[in-house]
């Protein structure tokens, strides 16, 4: 070990018997179990950890937690990369390999650092003032290349994430003494209590100091049944008491994949207690970004918890009494305290450190040392221009007071107030559903925090009034953490290189609202989201515009409190779990028969059954030809099926569909168009009457959920007096459709009753029958134009039926056919495919269903909208057929119709297009303005710069009289 490790009893959080080797920028280093990457780097004497975002300035570890702006690394393990990881919250694990970000070729020799020389020309928002000529595009690539921090992998992440939802009476965020106290009190009063603690162990600052009360509280928490979640960061409070947190699970062993990496906790809490503590506010002085300048509290934690001396000789720059406690504590650890340089006048200083030199009313004017502090120059606050005194040191600590972590309070819509004497924002009363305790409530005195938190926990458990926090104990601080008049580069937001003069510039240019300040200078927009810079920024803006900090106000705190991985937020909704994939009940049969499956909506269905030498397209041609010539077998199971029951079922369907369904006799079926209130076609299908008060409704495969939901909404909300019951049964029935001139010949041999023969069972009728002991419901309807039987069969018998049908169809020259062939067949017939030939603007008249609408007696959904001027406009589009003038060229779907060359006004577009194997010619459907009047006209069809002439024809090419439907 290097000389930066302190002897025992320092290091309450590390296990010196468990050394852990790790890699930093390719170099092998070692730390102990219980180290963070940051503490291990410091213990190894690594000062230069990374480069800043804008100017590539050398930076070292600055803090010890979520506030860290500088020590950002990429973790690398083969193709697995984790970008932008905070070294201060990353536990050291075996084989961990970290790399500095935003530097090339290395963190030590970074060519980007040349930008430092240009810094005077790069004030806040400089890019808004230049790069306009000749064009931003000339500059953008270079700027993009310079920007960004870490690098992400392009290989899919193979680790896993999960999500868990729980309820709690009281959820406490923060495992420090206040959080523990609140949780113990709540649990002891009978509340189901969850305590979320970001660190690997609860206890907080007093915990790593070895406080006995913390040990006692931890024991009590166990006895009282507090659910303790460690390594769990609460990042957001959402509507109605939803608290979200991520738990980090064990780091993956290098080289292995598939480990559970993080767990998202969604906690529905009756009450939330925030005990997130406070962040330390840095001092502002020139060179305050150098490696070796860091937060005082962080150095203290590294010394005690990790036995790590961040330096040997420290100067503490102070604006708060806490500096003196740190001075005492570090001195006890053997670190020399050169001086406490306190920017406050002596009468405002409420603490001292025995034997430590105190320079009251002084500040740092200069930091000496580029890549590591070697000393500093301090001046009297009243004479910032004087030569000052040089202090030799290798560490400068910032103790600028505290900024309570009001993030969750603010997310929960709590208000803030400014405490003048302690110079901090604290919660102004509780937020809805959320109470703050401890330092984040502004309660800094140990015993007051302990007692108040316990009262809060108990009161929430028992439903009592929650006492207000006894705010105080932080001592006095000045709002301004700099000495006026000191010049130089003073950094406000370390990661984004925002300086104090950038705030003055923003003020001068009128970016004075705190949101303008943030957006113009980018302060508070780095990965730490301004945890060390926000308060200083708005104090500075207040100074520049003669406003109190409370008047300047704060920016809105938004989730997440700390960055959360996309993986954790998504959990297991990845791969096939992203959306449920629907498979056919007899998917195996299709696979065995050579099906090529494709996704149609969420269904995986056979697009066709290509043979070894066939493309999907040629297979579809063969299949379609087979259906026209012999027989085809189609799996129509996804077809939407809804049963409607009840005395008013017929009346209800009349209201829903454009057609009249009440005039159907039992056993009859009719095609129906379904509209929405705007008159737009949203679905179609066949409605069949099974009995007086019993209908069978087929919808499109994609539309069944929507349609059933629409039926329910109309019934429940608008027609609650109608006696009708809507039962979606799609998944209950498989559907095997047999289509073609030999359809009946096929079915006759599988043992179907003769009454189903085409002579006795008419087209557009329905009847129940039996197949091999199971009920079947047979509908004579056709989407191919051929004699068709849609046989609905209990879903578990689908495969049996398919096998029997196939056994009969194969010898007759039949084949299974897929969606592609079906599309060819229905296009040849001019049958409408809703969603393909129609879009969300298509009205019934546009597809030739206007006739008879006026005569229908019942109202129906969408009817009134069809009477509006736009719906009656004679210039509307109409579905027509198109054939290429040359008889050969296929018209691409989506091609636009116009006679003039583009750009010009379009008159329509091709909606469906296929090569017809029967006609040996292309067929297409199109929506065309005034199409019904234009039969025989030649039009130009334009596709990606190419023109094809086509002739407008009627929509049905095959058997327009429909004789083939009847067998």
């Amino acid at each position, binding site marked *: 070990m290097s000389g930066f490790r302190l002897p025992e009893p320092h290091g309450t959080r590390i296990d010196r018997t468990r050394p852990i080797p790790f890699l930093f920028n390719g170099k092998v280093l070692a730390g102990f179990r219980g180290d963070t990457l940051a503490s291990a780097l410091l213990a190894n004497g690594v000062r230069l950890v990374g480069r800043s975002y804008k100017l590539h300035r050398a930076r070292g570890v600055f803090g010890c937690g979520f506030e860290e702006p500088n020590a950002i690394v990429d973790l690398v393990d083969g193709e697995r990369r984790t970008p932008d990881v905070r070294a201060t919250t990353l536990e050291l694990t075996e084989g961990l390999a970290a790399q500095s970000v935003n530097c090339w070729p290395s963190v030590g020799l970074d060519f980007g650092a040349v930008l430092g020389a240009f810094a005077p020309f790069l004030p806040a928002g400089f890019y808004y003032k230049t790069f306009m000529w000749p064009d931003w595009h000339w500059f953008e690539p270079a700027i993009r290349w310079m920007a960004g921090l870490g690098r992400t992998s392009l290989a899919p992440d193979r680790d896993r994430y999960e999500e868990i939802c729980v309820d709690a009476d009281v959820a406490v965020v923060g495992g420090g003494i206040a959080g523990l106290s609140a949780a113990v009190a709540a649990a002891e009063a009978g509340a189901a209590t969850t305590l979320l603690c970001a660190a690997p162990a609860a206890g907080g600052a007093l915990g790593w100091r070895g406080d006995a009360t913390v040990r006692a509280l931890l024991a009590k928490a166990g006895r009282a049944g507090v659910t303790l979640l460690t390594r769990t960061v609460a990042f957001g409070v*959402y*509507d*109605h*008491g*939803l608290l979200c947190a991520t738990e980090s699970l064990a780091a993956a062993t290098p080289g292995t994949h598939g480990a559970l990496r993080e767990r998202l906790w*969604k906690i*529905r809490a009756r009450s939330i207690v925030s005990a997130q503590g406070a962040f330390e506010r840095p001092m502002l002085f020139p060179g305050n970004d150098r490696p070796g300048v860091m937060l005082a509290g962080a150095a203290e934690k590294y010394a005690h918890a990790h036995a790590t001396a961040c330096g040997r000789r420290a100067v503490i720059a102070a604006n708060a009494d806490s500096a003196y406690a740190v001075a005492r504590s570090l001195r006890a650890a053997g670190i020399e305290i050169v001086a406490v340089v306190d920017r406050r006048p002596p009468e405002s200083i409420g603490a001292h450190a025995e034997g430590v030199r105190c320079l009251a009313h002084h500040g740092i004017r200069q930091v000496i040392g580029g890549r590591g502090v070697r000393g500093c120059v301090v001046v009297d606050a009243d004479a910032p221009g004087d030569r000052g005194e040089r202090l030799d040191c290798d560490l400068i600590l910032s103790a600028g007071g505290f900024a309570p972590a009001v993030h969750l309070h603010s997310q929960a*819509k709590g208000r803030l107030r400014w405490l003048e004497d302690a110079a901090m924002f604290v919660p102004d009363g509780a937020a809805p559903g959320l109470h703050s305790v401890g330092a984040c409530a502004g309660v800094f005195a140990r015993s007051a925090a302990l007692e108040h938190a316990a009262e809060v926990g108990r009161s929430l458990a028992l439903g009592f009034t929650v006492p207000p926090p006894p705010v105080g104990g932080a001592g006095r601080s000045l709002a301004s953490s700099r000495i006026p008049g000191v010049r130089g580069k003073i950094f406000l937001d370390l990661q984004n290189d925002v300086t104090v003069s950038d705030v003055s510039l923003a003020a001068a240019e009128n970016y004075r609202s705190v949101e303008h300040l943030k957006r113009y200078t980018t302060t508070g927009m780095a990965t730490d989201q301004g945890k060390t810079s926000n308060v200083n920024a708005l104090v500075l803006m207040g100074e520049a515009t003669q406003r109190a900090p409370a008047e300047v106000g704060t920016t809105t705190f938004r989730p997440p409190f700390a960055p959360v991985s996309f993986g954790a937020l998504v959990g297991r909704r990845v791969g096939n779990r992203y959306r449920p994939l629907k498979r056919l009940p007899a998917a195996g049969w299709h696979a065995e028969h050579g099906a090529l499956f494709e996704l149609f909506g969420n269904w995986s269905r056979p697009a066709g059954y290509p043979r070894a030498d066939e493309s999907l397209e040629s297979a579809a041609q063969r299949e379609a030809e087979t259906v026209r010539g012999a027989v085809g077998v189609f799996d129509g199971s996804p077809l939407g099926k809804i049963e409607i029951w009840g005395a008013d079922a017929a009346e209800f369907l009349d209201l829903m569909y454009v057609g009249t369904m009440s005039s159907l006799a039992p056993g009859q079926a009719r095609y129906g168009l379904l509209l929405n*209130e*705007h008159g737009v076609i949203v679905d179609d299908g066949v409605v069949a009457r099974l009995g007086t008060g019993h209908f069978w409704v087929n919808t499109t495969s994609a539309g069944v959920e929507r349609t059933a*939901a629409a039926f*329910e*909404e109309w019934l*429940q*909300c*608008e027609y*609650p007096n109608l006696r009708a019951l809507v039962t979606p049964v799609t998944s209950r029935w498989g559907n095997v459709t047999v289509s073609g001139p030999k359809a009946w010949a096929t079915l006759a041999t599988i043992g179907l009753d003769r009454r189903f023969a085409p002579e006795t069972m008419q087209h557009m009728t329905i009847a129940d029958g039996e197949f091999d002991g199971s009920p079947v419901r047979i509908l004579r309807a056709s989407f191919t134009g051929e004699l068709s039987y849609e046989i609905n069969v209990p879903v578990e018998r689908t495969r049996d039926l398919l096998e029997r049908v196939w056994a009969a169809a194969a010898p007759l020259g039949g084949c299974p056919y897929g969606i592609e062939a079906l599309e060819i067949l229905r296009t040849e017939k001019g049958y409408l495919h809703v969603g393909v030939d129609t879009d969300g603007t298509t009205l019934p008249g546009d597809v030739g269903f206007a006739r008879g609408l006026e005569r229908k007696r019942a*109202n129906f959904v969408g*009817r*009134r*909208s069809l*009477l*509006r*001027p736009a719906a009656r406009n004679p210039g509307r589009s109409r579905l027509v057929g198109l054939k290429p003038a040359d008889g050969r060229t296929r018209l691409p779907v989506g091609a636009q119709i116009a006679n003039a060359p583009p750009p010009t006004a379009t008159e329509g577009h091709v909606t469906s297009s296929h090569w017809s194997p029967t006609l040996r010619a292309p067929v297409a459907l199109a929506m065309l303005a005034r199409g019904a009047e234009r039969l025989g006209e030649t039009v130009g069809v334009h596709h990606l710069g190419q023109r094809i002439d086509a002739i407008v024809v009627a929509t049905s090419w095959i058997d327009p009289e429909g004789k083939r439907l009847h067998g």
Partner: protein
Amino acid sequence: MMKIPCPHCGVRDENEFQCGGTAHLARPALDASDREWGEYLYFRDNPKGSHRERWRHAYGCGRWFNVVRDTLTHEISAVYPITETPAR
């Protein structure tokens, strides 16, 4: 994410529900003017504050019901049956 008290299933998470928009819209008769029909189809109070709206427990009982919800705070102040029309 809101908690919504389904009158039939109890309090459940928002993502089990579907919002059907403003409640108690009166559908004009077939002989309404184009203006009245357009008002019904498209024009809404869209208040910033208390809003009567209907919701369906889509991944649950499937039933529709009415909710009074504040569109700014998302607080739900009342839930009542779909067939009930409150006095304004």
